[in-house]
């Protein structure tokens, strides 16, 4: 986990999908087109000033430049040159030094093409939205996880999955490519992304959970249906995980992600053996909770955050309840399938015993119908599970990530608050010194305290900036998250209902074929 704050890399060219779903607050008007014109844009210094006047509230539409730029420059400790070459990808999960910016244009070029560009100054919200709609799914990147393959033997064995990427984005060297990855690679990716982005307020999709039991069975070589099911469940989960991750505009720009998708060799992620991404997340959450319990309740100056937290809390509860019920459904449907299969067999036996020819034939037909129906039930159970149940469990874990991000904001506030308190104390000390009457020794002490005060003043400023930044980011992220969620749910619900329709139609087919057989009994 990064020990120090790191801003996310520049130029993620996030489309302007900042959209408040409920209140009409408009924090900033940010556009990608602004970035395009960046080479001729104002100097960072000016931005830095702009930022310091930001409050933790709605921002009037005078902010010209995109908040991503603000992100970068807020922390810039060196001169930013917009023409600097692409920086080196961050390869380790250790905190890296101050980020060198990446030329925005190359990264976002493809997206720019599709948008109308003009010297952008102030964009109102509706324009933003229109552009956004036009963008739609401009991400144009498809990920597939397939072909699970067992590598090795015994307890050292593992499953390798093929990760295929199809994309037209120019940041990738090819338009279609695939690599082999194992589960710990995915966990490694998540842990890197989490360490870079979680604490600044980005909702990083959680990786699938580890399962010791499941994997052991696979390693040991049990070829039964439960281990095949386990592998399939995992494969699907990994696919969904990657698809969600690449949908995130900031994360898509991350070099670690790119390396994960592209490079044929990946350094082994060693620190995932003990802890999975989800495990780390859990730890973070627990630590954050513990901290929060100890600290004073944050003075929430923005009701939006409180509302949102409550909403997510409620949503979490509701989804858990629904998820439990759907799991019961899956279980019973599997039972129904098994019982139908058993009945089919006994109906066939009965048909064999029956000495009236026509009835015997009809009973055999019944047995066949029931066998087909058993298959149907099985398929429907899969649909129940992979579409409905897994969607819910994914979102339960995603919401945990969201809650984590809110917790980080609180921690951030706490840091700022602490800095303010310390500054106050230092000032008091200085004031006391001023009134005391000890000329000679005091000068040195005065200088020291002066230095400290300056240091803490900077920290307070930094704290405030950080807090505002994370608040801003979270608002955007939540907006994006909710939008994704709505889309996700709608898509899956429709798909699921279509699967139910399919099942019913098949049933109609089977019974329609059977009816004449029953009528033929003379």
């Amino acid at each position, binding site marked *: 986990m990064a020990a120090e704050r790191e801003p996310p890399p520049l130029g993620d060219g996030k489309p302007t999908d900042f959209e408040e779903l409920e209140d009409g607050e408009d924090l900033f008007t940010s556009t990608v087109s602004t970035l395009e014109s960046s080479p001729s844009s104002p100097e960072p210094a000016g931005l830095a000033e702009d930022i310091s006047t930001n409050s933790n509230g709605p921002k009037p539409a005078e902010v010209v430049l995109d908040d991503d730029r603000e992100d970068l420059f807020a922390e810039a400790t060196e001169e930013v040159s917009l023409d600097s070459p692409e920086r080196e990808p961050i390869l380790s999960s250790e905190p890296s030094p101050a980020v060198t910016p990446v030329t925005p244009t190359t990264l976002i070029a493809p997206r720019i093409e599709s948008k109308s560009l003009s010297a952008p100054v102030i964009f109102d919200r509706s324009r933003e939205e229109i552009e956004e709609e036009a963008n739609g799914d401009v991400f144009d990147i498809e990920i597939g996880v397939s072909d699970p393959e067992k590598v090795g033997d015994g307890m050292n064995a593992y499953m390798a999955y093929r990760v295929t990427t199809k994309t037209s984005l120019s940041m990738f060297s090819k338009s279609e490519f695939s690599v082999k990855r194992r589960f710990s690679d995915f966990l490694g990716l998540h842990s890197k992304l989490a360490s870079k982005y979680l604490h600044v307020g980005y909702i990083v999709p959680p990786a699938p959970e580890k399962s010791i039991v499941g994997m052991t069975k696979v390693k040991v070589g049990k070829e039964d249906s439960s281990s095949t099911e386990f592998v399939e469940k995992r494969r699907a989960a990994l696919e969904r995980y990657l698809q969600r991750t690449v949908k995130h505009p900031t994360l898509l720009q991350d070099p670690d992600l790119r390396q994960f998708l592209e490079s044929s060799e990946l350094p082994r992620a060693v620190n995932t053996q003990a802890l999975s991404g989800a495990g780390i997340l859990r730890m973070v959450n627990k630590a954050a909770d513990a901290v929060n319990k100890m600290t004073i309740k944050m003075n929430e100056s923005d009701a939006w955050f409180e509302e949102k937290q409550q909403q997510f809390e409620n949503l979490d509860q509701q989804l858990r309840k629904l998820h439990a019920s759907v799991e019961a459904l899956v279980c019973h449907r599997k039972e129904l399938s098994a019982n*139908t299969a058993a009945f089919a067999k006994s109906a066939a036996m009965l048909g064999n015993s029956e*000495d009236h020819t026509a009835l015997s034939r009809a009973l055999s037909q019944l047995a066949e119908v029931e066998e087909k129906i058993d298959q149907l039930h099985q398929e429907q159970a899969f649909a129940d599970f992979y579409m409905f149940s897994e969607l819910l469990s994914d979102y339960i874990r995603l919401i945990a990530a969201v809650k984590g991000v809110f917790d980080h904001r609180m921690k951030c506030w706490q840091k700022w608050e602490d800095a303010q308190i310390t500054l106050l104390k230092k000032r008091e000390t200085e004031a006391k010194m001023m009134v005391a009457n000890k000329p000679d020794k005091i000068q040195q002490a005065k200088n020291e305290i002066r230095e400290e005060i300056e240091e803490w003043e900077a920290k307070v400023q930094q704290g405030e900036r950080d807090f505002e930044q994370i608040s801003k980011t979270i608002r955007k992220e939540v907006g994006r998250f909710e939008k994704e969620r709505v889309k996700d749910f709608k898509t899956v619900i429709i798909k699921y209902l279509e699967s139910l329709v399919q099942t019913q139609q098949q049933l109609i087919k089977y019974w329609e074929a059977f009816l004449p057989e029953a009528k033929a*009994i003379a």
Partner: protein
Amino acid sequence: MDDAMVAQPSSTAVDLHGDSSLQVEISDAVSERDKVKFTVQTKSCLPHFAQTEFSVVRQHEEFIWLHDAYVENEEYAGLIIPPAPPRPDFEASREKLQKLGEGDSSITREEFAKMKQELEAEYLAIFKKTVAMHEVFLQRLAAHPTLRRDHNFFVFLEYGQDLSVRGKNRKELLGGFLRNIVKSADEALITGMSGLKEVDDFFEHERTFLLEYHTRIRDACLRADRVMHSHKCLADDYIPISAALSSLGTQEVNQLKTSFLKLAELFERLRKLEGRMASDEDLKLSDMLRYYMRDSQAAKDLLYRRLRALADYENANKALDKARTRNREVRTAESHQQLCCQRFERLSDSAKQELMDFKSRRVSSFRKNLIELAELELKHAKASTLLLRNTLVALKGEP
């Protein structure tokens, strides 16, 4: 739901040959604490009866008494005695209702109401079934040319007072126990272990057939029950799902609100359809299989009786031979042998007829029920499809 307490005449097993000189039905039934009171109504123009239309109230034990009376009657040895109706058993249903009442605080009021409704419907269904089973028993008796003339039957139908057979409960249990002992001896006979030679091809075939058939239909019946049970569980699962979707819908953001609420409604309707499918499968498949399981047992019992008669006949032959060699009591042995022979032949003739009737009854009943089953499955599948399609249209139409 109409006529809560009046059972519809069961179409399971009765083939009434259009003879209306004796019509029996259960016109009413009342479920009290631990017993059910059936109102048996008779319409008849037969001279035996004092009136043309009359009814009496009977309880389950009195049906059993009637059944046993037939079984014990030598005159009917060559006939398939319609199987006795099963004891009304509301235990499981009552327990479930009680458990629900004891309350699980995690469920909402709507969920509770729905579950209660489900259980009450289940209770009602069991009740209807038991009425139907008792009715079918009587109707088969009324339709059978020989059985309908039985004196005990008239008493059962007409005698206004209670038949005082309730004490028979214990005897019924004991009787059952004794019957089982006798039955294993019969099993030995029928499975040919006793070395008895079957002379008639028809009966040889029937014996093999019935043995296997009975086992397999019993198996099929059990498994059909399990399918029905799973189906019911599935339908019940929709209750909490619908409730959870509903509460999600009320709390959700606008874009998802309607989706969830529509989905909640959909699952509620699907639940009813699935429930109906489960109960149709129960009636048309499970119950039919169960009835023929019992009926095939009754047919087996007939075969036992015939084989016992055959055994008696063979023993009488042996005794006659012995008597002739010893030249003692020949005439007694001769007349005894004659009796056994006649009895055996009488039984064989009527058994043949009965078994053929059994086959045609079985075939027509299966035919009817399988057709109805397929038609109902189609009906429900089409209704589900329509429902799902409508919901899809509504959801896709959403912005």
